[in-house]
């Protein structure tokens, strides 16, 4: 017998509200930072527009839609063709420019609104106050110069704690300092990720540099080579020639491939991928309540593998190697995109409507095509689309014990 539902106490209602607020803050910030802010805002702007008018794209078939500095021609099968300029003969009636969301900031707007609501709703609640403070910090880290400042911090450590540091300066001393530097970069990347204080692409570049340089050092035959591997790379990133760290990561990977350190680059890229893949699996096997929080960090590792793979593919002269690198990069990108899509899906479905919709859909599939097909579709939502953790499979398939 199922128990009668009971009315929640005031404390319980507040606890549920708090949990939902934490989830909303996390997912909004996650969608904003998983790749980079412009990409996150643009995707969210499209999602909002689609939700408001689900048929908007079908109304645009054959039209040239302005996007960024170019145009996308929407085709009937859901695909699109990109154009830098309008082809000859296109008439003004065929061009649509009111879908240009390049200036829209729906995610930051949502965070601002959340910050205001949180402060108003529970001024006496220290937990909520703390959450509102965290939202404020996330918003402050959205300044245009934020990503450069994060890279400047890494460069400063490289200059003051390795290259210009006091000490004997012998081989062992330099090796020790270099390892300390890379350990610090690794911790910093995780801190930035935890606080949503940098874009995924910035964090991915830090992780990528760290992975390929450490792999090269590990493969060095002796201490001299080990030092060269570490210090050469730090010398590559320390000067202030670039505002962003991403080109440094790809430049370093390409340079290493050109200099013959392909094996080290491969090892570094695969270690990034293994970390990202492992985090995805861990999230899938973990708690439902913290699933998306566990999934989010995987994207930066996958993006790191994308950057390294793409750079190596462009640097190698061997066509087979190029193909292998490209495939590694595509696979990592695919995973990063799925993590991002899963976060977007969760943000859109905070009220649980998404899972309710999927449960009904799977029930229909089961009625029409049988248990096996329904189970495969449910597995696809979990294992491939990453929308839910494995613990929710019985719920999706309506096999969960109601008392669970």
């Amino acid at each position, binding site marked *: 017998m199922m128990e009668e539902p009971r009315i929640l106490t005031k404390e319980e209602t507040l606890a549920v509200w708090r949990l939902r607020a934490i989830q909303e803050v996390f997912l909004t910030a996650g969608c904003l930072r998983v790749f980079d802010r412009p990409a996150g805002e643009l995707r969210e702007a499209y999602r909002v527009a689609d939700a408001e008018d689900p048929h908007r794209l079908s109304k645009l078939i054959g039209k040239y839609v302005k996007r960024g500095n170019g145009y996308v021609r929407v085709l009937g099968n859901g695909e699109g063709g990109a154009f830098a300029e309008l082809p000859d003969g296109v008439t003004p009636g065929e061009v649509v420019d009111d879908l240009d969301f390049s200036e829209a900031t729906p995610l930051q707007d949502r965070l601002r609104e959340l910050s205001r609501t949180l402060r108003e709703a529970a001024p006496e609640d220290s937990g909520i106050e703390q959450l509102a403070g965290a939202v404020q910090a996330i918003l402050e880290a959205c300044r245009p110069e934020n990503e450069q400042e994060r890279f400047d911090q890494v460069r400063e450590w490289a200059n003051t704690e390795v290259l210009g540091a006091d000490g004997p300066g012998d081989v062992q001393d330099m090796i020790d300092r270099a390892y300390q530097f890379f350990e610090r970069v690794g911790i910093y990347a995780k801190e930035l990720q935890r606080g949503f204080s940098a874009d995924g692409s910035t964090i991915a570049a830090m992780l990528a540099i760290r992975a390929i340089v450490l792999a090269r050092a590990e493969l060095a035959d002796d201490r001299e080579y080990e030092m060269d591997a570490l210090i050469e790379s730090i010398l590559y990133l320390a000067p202030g020639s670039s505002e962003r760290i991403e080109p440094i990561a790809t430049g370093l990977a390409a340079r290493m491939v050109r200099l013959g350190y392909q094996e080290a680059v491969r090892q570094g890229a*695969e270690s990034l991928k293994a970390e990202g893949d492992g985090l995805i699996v861990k999230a899938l096997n973990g708690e439902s309540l913290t699933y998306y929080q566990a999934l989010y960090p995987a994207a930066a590792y996958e993006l790191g593998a994308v950057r390294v793979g793409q750079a190596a593919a462009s640097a190698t002269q061997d066509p*087979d190697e190029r*193909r292998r690198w490209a*495939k*590694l990069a595509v*696979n990592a990108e*695919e995973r990063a995109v799925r993590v991002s899509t899963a976060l977007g899906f969760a943000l859109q479905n905070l009220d649980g409507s998404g899972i309710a919709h999927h449960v009904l859909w799977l029930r229909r599939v089961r009625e029409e095509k049988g248990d*096996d097909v329904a189970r*495969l579709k449910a597995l696809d939502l979990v294992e491939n689309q990453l929308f839910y953790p494995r613990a929710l499979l019985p719920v999706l398939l309506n096999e969960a014990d109601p008392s669970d």
Partner: protein
Amino acid sequence: MTNQPDPRRSAESISTEIGLELSYFTDESERNFLPLGLPVGYLLLQWFAEGLVMGVGATASEPLTDKVAVAVKGLRTRVGRLFSRRGGTPQADARAEEELAIDTKEALDVARPQLGGSSGDELTRAAEAYEQALVGYLTGEGMPAVDAVRIAQRVRSEAGIQLRLGW
């Protein structure tokens, strides 16, 4: 537990093991590949079963290594054919799955009696050669070795279940 062979269950199991690694089977520009997870599971199961039959029949004039090399080429062609269909529709994907399910069942039905009389050593040698070849094929497509080994082991183990071979 059932005694009835169930190739679909094995193809699903291989497909789940492959999961998001499916992109390595296809050209980098291809994105809409998820409906092909199960067909790839069937394809690998069929390829492995056919390989075992060929492998246990290896002779000095036609050694196992030559047979494996030919089989890998064949695998590349079959995978290419599966993914190269343009404008893939759900109907086309369903048809590919159905055809491969039939072919796989046939390959398993043919292999079972043929392998029944083979020695354990011969079977193990052939299975190892084809498992290794699959690892080589997958790493050659850019897949990290650790994932390639995991997938090849799953294919071998599922083929063993369907062919009722104990390894």
